[in-house]
């Protein structure tokens, strides 16, 4: 019974995200401001349902539901939403939902494609390090997802300013500096989270498998991700790679995150594979 409830919650949340995404995209092409609110309400509703789905699944499985690709991707998008709401209410940027909700929806949709059965955790995963490691990793990835969305907004607005075109969209988008600063904040949030996730991962690997580091593909790609964001921060602080360059790098960085998440798990298998 409760399995059905979590599936129902999941499907409803997915539907809300799909509608919020549509409302957000319509907002980009419409003159009136009305759909932005709708997108926000739908995403809040979706988030509540989504939380319900995660909680019921937690109760049923007895562990944080991140033990297969379906659960992990769903949890990933849930983390993105938390950061999205935080920024939406703190900065009240218009149009944020138009750029973040599509990311949330795509993640959630991929989650829907993966097999959904709840499995018993393998012994190696039965550790409190598991929860800490995974939550840190996904919050970090969520910050990078947000940075990517903000980066796209930056590039769009930069294009308007440079090409000297005014359009309703130019008027609705926030200022370049605001976007650049939020992008920077997000990376300074994501980077330490990723670092901590890697440290806890290493400690946990040692307690579970007896080795700290085994050059498993996921580990390698996490290291690459870490290096990219380290470089983003380094270049900004030393030679002032801000603005457009930072925006492009945060999009590239997120592409690597996505590859490390989906690509590595599905193509290059290692001890992180859930199946």
């Amino acid at each position, binding site marked *: 019974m409760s399995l059905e409830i979590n599936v129902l919650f999941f499907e409803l949340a997915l539907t809300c995200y799909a509608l919020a995404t549509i409302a957000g995209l319509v907002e980009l092409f419409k003159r009136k401001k009305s759909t932005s609110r709708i997108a926000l309400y739908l995403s809040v509703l979706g988030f509540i349902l989504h939380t319900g789905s995660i909680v019921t699944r937690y109760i049923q499985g007895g562990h944080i539901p991140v033990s297969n690709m379906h659960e992990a991707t769903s949890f990933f998008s849930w983390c993105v939403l938390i950061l999205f709401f935080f920024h939406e209410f703190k900065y009240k940027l218009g149009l944020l939902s138009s750029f973040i909700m599509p990311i949330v929806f795509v993640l959630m949709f991929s989650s829907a494609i993966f097999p959904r059965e709840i499995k018993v955790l393998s012994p190696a995963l039965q550790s409190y390090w598991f929860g800490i490691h995974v939550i840190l990793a996904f919050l970090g990835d969520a910050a990078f997802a947000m940075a990517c969305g903000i980066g796209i907004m930056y590039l769009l607005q930069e294009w308007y300013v440079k090409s000297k075109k005014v359009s309703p969209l130019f008027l609705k988008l926030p200022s*370049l500096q605001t976007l650049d600063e939020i992008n920077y904040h997000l990376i300074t949030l994501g980077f330490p989270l990723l670092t901590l996730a890697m440290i806890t991962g290493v400690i946990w690997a040692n307690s579970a498998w007896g080795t700290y580091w085994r050059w498993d593909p996921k580990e390698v790609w996490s290291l690459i991700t870490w290096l990219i964001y380290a470089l983003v921060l380094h270049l900004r602080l030393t*030679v002032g790679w801000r*603005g457009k360059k930072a925006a492009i790098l945060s999009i590239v960085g997120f592409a690597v995150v996505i590859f490390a998440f989906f690509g590595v798990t599905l193509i290059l298998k290692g001890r992180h594979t859930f199946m």
Partner: protein
Amino acid sequence: MNILVVGLNHKTAPIEVREKVAFDGPKLEEAINTLMKSGEVKENIVLSTCNRVEIYAGVSNMDAGIESIKDFISRFHDVPRNLLDKSLYIHRGSDAVKHMYRVAASLDSMVVGEPQILGQLKDAYDSALKNKSTGVFLNKLMRKSVSVAKRIRTETKIAESAVSISFAAVELAKKIFDNLSTKAVMLIGAGEMAELAARHLMNNGVKEVYVTNRTQCRAEELAREFNGNVVLFHNFVHELHYNDIVICSTGAPDYILMKDQARKVMKDRKQKPIFIIDISVPRNIDPEINNLDNVYLYTVDDLKGIVDTNIGERAKEAEKAEKIVNEEIGSFLKWHESLSATPVIVALRNKAEGIRKAELEKTLKGLGPVEEKTIRSIEQLTTSIVNKIIHPPTAALKSDDEDREQMLDVVQRLFKLNIESDENDKT
């Protein structure tokens, strides 16, 4: 009572005429009071700005009212009637209502959507209130106009984008920087447009101003004017390190800032964005600079392009606003109709009778079984009380007294009478 407006504006009269008939300073109160004494005009609001002079009036006889107002303007300002007649427009009844809505919403302005006019109209109303020259009609019309103007401002984008070059510069600055109060602006050279742009930027929060000029004393003069700092002209490129917005307007025949110099400046600034406005003709800043990262260069033509687009946008929004105006006229006219006596008297009667019946029923229920005779005498008693109370107001409403329409309005409000039009009339 009839509403009308007599006036002239930038479309019907040249500045020479508008100047002559303006009611500025103490003339305004004098005009309001003189009009009230004329006898024909029962209520009036006098609006006098640099683009328009208008008298809104409530009169009992339309033609006599118009005549007396025209006469008044001509005598007050000592302007011959034939000159006035050429420039004056007259709107009566619903047209006058529409006109006030359009003026309040800035649809009749020289720059459509400019926000000052609503404030000016409110000031005119305040002066009228102070001199007690308004009554039920103009009060209502004024309230309604303000709400229509606000509705238009929220439902359309008529006042949203900049329609002058200096405002366009501010608009852009706000799309590049998040907080202008932490930014510094440098004025290179001087000129009306450059100074105006700098002023607008300061009004929008910019605090620090640096000024440079080939002629040192001119720079000092400007610095005093803007409460800013003087920068030596040969040193200005170096100073760009500290300035986020640059307004350039010198008479130099060629470029005074080259791409390589700008690249060096950006390196020193650690790529902090810089917004350069080149108002000079011929241009003073190498246009190639716009290709550098985090440098945003706008020439006067670029700004003009933005202004033209914005003006086009406003014209589209104005069409929507006109539709709103037409919708809203109806509700004022309905209210006006409700001031005819019959519906008010009927409503008053119904209200009193309704109360009587309800109370009677309650009392009879409480009394328990009572004789038929007693019931009848209680009914008689209540009916005659009600009739005695509402007789004088009914008689007054039916009379031909001058303030009858005011009373109609007051009665409706005192007794909370529900007459159709009041429902869709929220101010």
